[in-house]
């Protein structure tokens, strides 16, 4: 019984921690429409992790492709994906939509 209670406490703490971590990360919206990222310059605060909330408004899927940090993330048509991003040093981090790399180009700017 004691063990069970201890387990529950640990679990609750874990859930709490995850919740706090999730709550602490700022959400940065990013939309794909007509094979273009909006905005095409995404400004974020340097040094803190954040969550990119990516919505694909197009009829086809898209894959966000970034070289550094190494990210390949599929966003199905009409869906929203929450992508956890690490803390970035100040600088520019370009990415493309791999399936429409001619038009879907954008940059995350960490300041």
């Amino acid at each position, binding site marked *: 019984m004691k063990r069970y209670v201890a387990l529950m406490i640990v679990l609750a703490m874990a859930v709490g921690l995850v919740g706090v971590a999730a709550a602490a990360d700022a959400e940065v919206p990013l939309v794909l429409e007509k094979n273009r990222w909006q905005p095409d310059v995404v400004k974020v605060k340097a040094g803190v992790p954040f969550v990119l909330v990516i919505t694909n408004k197009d*009829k*086809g*899927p898209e894959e966000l492709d970034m070289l550094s*940090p*190494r990210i390949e993330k599929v966003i*199905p048509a009409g869906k929203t994906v929450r992508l956890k991003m*690490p803390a970035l040093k100040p600088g520019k981090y370009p990415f493309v939509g*791999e399936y429409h790399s001619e038009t879907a180009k954008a940059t995350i700017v960490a300041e």
Partner: protein
Amino acid sequence: MGATFIVTLREAFEAALVLGIIYSYLEKVGAHDGVRYLTRGGLLGLLASVAMGIGVSYLSGPLLDIGPDLITLVVIFAAVGLLTWHAWWMQQYARLIKGQVQHRIDEARASNRLWVVGLIAFTSVFREGAETVLFLWGIVSEEGGAGWGSLVGGVAGIVGAAALGWTVFRGGQRLSLQRFFSVTTVFIMLLGAGLLSRGIGRMQGMGLLPFSEPVWNTSWLLSDGSIAGGFLSGLVGYRAQPTLPEVVAYLAYVVVVGMLLFVRRAPAAVGVASPSRS
């Protein structure tokens, strides 16, 4: 049309190369029943790719946020393990048959591992397969009807990759057994190293390992996005902007597996296996 041709050619050629090599290998050692496993594995990989491509579109919430990434990661590391094992086995086999007049297959040993061959085919196709399915789907759903020309390009890319695999298969038939084994073992080793470092990179991107900045940047010389860069990435794991853990993983793999494959072990074993009298 040309752009989509390149994309699917790049996605599919790695699988085509691996399949070409293993078909050739099975043919060479006379394990004809293995061909069936390989084909089935490949077909299952194709089915799984389509299923995943469709499945992903029905997911949502946290499942969509990390589910596909975790599957990709598992497939990458499974492929590393399987390919390493296969290279090791090929090397053992090459030693075994060295000096023998007739290189006949050891049926018992071969049948033991035929399912591994099937698994390799599965992971090779499935790894980039789902992405290719999504890519083609994206093309077709393009607005304005411009999609079909691109779709033809995309399908042509896959056919092109298959032709490449076939060429490897034919070429493999012509090489001597010894040369075939050494060339493909090196190739599979580099492929494994590249895959391992790719898996590590993905883990960094997913936050499972701490993120680090690239240690160098050779984009000016050969960018990942270029055609040559893309092919080199598939072949030997080239990265224009690798992170330290990626580089370390790559080198560690090459050193450890290279020693496992190419350095002769205990002197006693050498004494037995050595063809010094010939």
